[in-house]
């Protein structure tokens, strides 16, 4: 009976060793489906990927396209084992999305080791195109440097010259703090201190009290998603904003503003790569998305998944092959990008996708015509200024090319 139970266990497990790579283009959407970042990516990213595949009629170079998805639960070990299994056993060719910088860094390495393709839309750490860059990674949408440069610079220029940071204690939070501190000091400001909190903390009161006692003019929130929302709520409860200090949300998504409400969020300045109401093209695409996704307008992460998958398929079509990850990414860098969400752009040698970034301010309740009408544009940061200069990133691909 023990033999039987063991055999049964083997059958139930089912991850049988894969034979030769299949003749399907398989794209895996790996993100947080149930936790902190589920709203800004989640199933919306899967919808976005499917929309991109449909633009090509679900077939490229004679190969049908299949979209699969999984939940990494913001844990690097779960993300790693899903990615390894996808690549080794399930014949997945490209992984997209991956919010949570810790998981993204792990996926980037695994993808490079197995020569597949990794198009990140959700994670923020600028290390993906810096120290940890690989020839198989493309970093779409945004990163900590562009956010720091957008929001950070503007806030300091407007008079917020002393800062205290509330940092999410993982790769993203630390990268965001590092990049924003650099911008603050470069523009004449001073960083008075910082405090780290665990991911998905439930109570921010003690951290905010430390921020309050520092007497810094600006409290920089180097966190995202639910953590940012909770910090803002707790700050209002403890009278921090009434006390004269201002909050700077360094990474705020439209889904966060939707959850907070305009009453709590108005006046917040944020940098974003995409806003559904920016121009006719984005409006048209977003309308199609919202029709398929419960009337919710897309976040910049979901838009990035759409655009990234589109460009990947364009490259595969041009090469007529998908098997060599390095070659596909090289083709993606060679071809200029053009899509309704981000307009025209390029992908640099270090894997960084280049497009303009935009500084927005959250509208007051009176200024908004309805749900999702939340932003007014303050400034467009041109593409050549929006991202970290190529030579400052310490990306080994770039330094090697120079020699």
């Amino acid at each position, binding site marked *: *009976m*023990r*033999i039987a*139970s*063991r055999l049964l*266990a*083997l059958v*139930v*497990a*089912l*991850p*049988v*060793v894969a034979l030769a790579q299949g003749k399907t283009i398989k794209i895996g959407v790996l993100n947080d*489906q*149930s936790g902190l970042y589920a709203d800004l990516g989640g199933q919306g990213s899967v919808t976005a990927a499917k929309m991109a595949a449909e633009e090509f009629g679900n077939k490229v170079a004679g190969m049908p396209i299949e979209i699969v998805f*999984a*939940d990494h*639960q*913001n*844990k*690097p*070990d*779960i993300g*790693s*084992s*899903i990615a*390894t*299994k996808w690549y*080794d*056993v399930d014949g997945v060719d490209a992984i997209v999305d991956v919010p949570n*910088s*810790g998981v993204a*860094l*792990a996926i980037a*390495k695994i993808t490079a080791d197995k020569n597949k393709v990794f198009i990140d839309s959700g994670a923020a750490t600028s290390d993906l195109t810096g120290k940890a860059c690989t020839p198989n990674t493309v970093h779409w949408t945004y990163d900590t440097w562009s956010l720091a440069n957008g929001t950070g610079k503007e806030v300091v220029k407007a008079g917020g010259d002393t800062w205290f940071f509330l940092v999410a*204690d*993982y*790769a993203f939070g630390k990268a965001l703090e590092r990049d924003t501190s650099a911008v603050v000091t470069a523009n004449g400001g001073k960083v008075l201190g910082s405090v*780290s909190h*665990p*991911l998905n903390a439930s109570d921010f009161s003690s951290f905010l009290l430390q921020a309050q006692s520092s007497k810094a003019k600006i409290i920089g929130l180097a966190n995202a998603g639910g953590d940012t929302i909770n910090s803002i709520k707790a700050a209002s409860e403890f009278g921090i904003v009434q006390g004269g200090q201002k909050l700077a949300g360094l990474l705020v998504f439209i889904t966060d503003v939707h959850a907070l409400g305009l009453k709590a969020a108005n006046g917040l300045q944020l940098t974003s790569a995409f806003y559904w109401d920016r121009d006719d093209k984005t409006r048209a695409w977003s309308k199609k998305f919202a029709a398929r996704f419960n009337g919710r307008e897309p976040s910049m992460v979901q838009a990035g998944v759409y655009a990234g998958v589109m460009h990947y398929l364009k490259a595969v079509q041009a090469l007529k092959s998908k098997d060599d990850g390095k070659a596909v990414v090289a083709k993606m860098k060679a071809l200029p990008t053009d899509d309704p969400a981000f307009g025209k752009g390029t992908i640099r040698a270090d894997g960084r996708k280049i497009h303009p970034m935009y500084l927005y301010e959250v509208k007051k309740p009176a200024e908004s015509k309805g749900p999702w009408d939340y932003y007014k544009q303050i400034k467009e940061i041109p593409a050549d200024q929006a991202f970290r200069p190529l030579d400052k990133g310490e990306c080994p691909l770039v330094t090697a090319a120079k020699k």
Partner: protein
Amino acid sequence: MTTHGVEAKPSTAAEVRIASRAELRSLRVPIAILIVVCLVAPFLVYPVFLMKMLCFALFACAFNLLIGYVGLLSFGHALFLGGAGYLAAHAARVWGLPFELAVLTGTATATVLGLVVGWVAIRRQGIYFAMITLALAQMFYFFCLRAPFTGGEDGIQGVPRGKLLGLLSLDNNLTMYFVVLAIFLLGFFFVFRVIHSPFGQVLKAVRENEPRAVSLGYKSDHYKLIAFVLSAAVSGLAGATKAIVFQLASLTDVYWSTSGEVILMVLLGGLGTIFGPVVGAVVIVCVESFLAQIGGWVTVVQGGLFIVCVLAFRRGIIGELARVLHRPL
């Protein structure tokens, strides 16, 4: 906790050795089956998945030593699994130690941690012991969360597998599998040997009737502590191996949910049986992998299994099988 294995009744050390060899001989069929299945499996099933099963099976065997044979329920064994994993990963990646030394580093760490935790926790028994181990393990979790070398939420990534004894590259999954299998069998037989030894006999005596054992002159606390440290060491071996195989050491391995998982594995497989922990580990890893598509329901199923096992299935799979076959398993 009382268990339901069948015990022999030798009295001198020599008789114990003979009895242990006899027991080993009587178990030769199940052991042979185990070895054959393990040798054939990697050609049928994804080796990485099998290695996960082996590491957890070893962890479960180590845990079973403590609960099945000493009667102590530790709710913090993740401390040893994860702690060893972190040190082994750090040793391999930062200090550049080869595979076997990295694993040894991890195991040594777990042994030391076992000594410290055991010394504090052994003072109390039963439920208190469980709560204390849980609290200490949680303390260790918070330490790992903040300590810079563990990488916090990101964990230690990109751990190289390296070469075995400087010769055999472990990057190939199949090679790695056989190395892990060797480690598992080593640990498994070590635990078996500990149980069937004069030391193991005293442990059983302490579990059955501690005041009596003390009155016979055995320092029960010392025996319990040694058993605890041995259990911690083998758990550390499992954890160190796991970290190198998966090339990642993360917070999940030190979180109390992992401690709960190993308890479930041993409970489901059969407390105090030889093969129970192995079977339990295999079943739980398969269930989790099968349910991974449904994501969040894994914990619900685990909880359900706990409830069912405690209310109606206390002997576990192997325990029931042993009862039916009227022989120890």
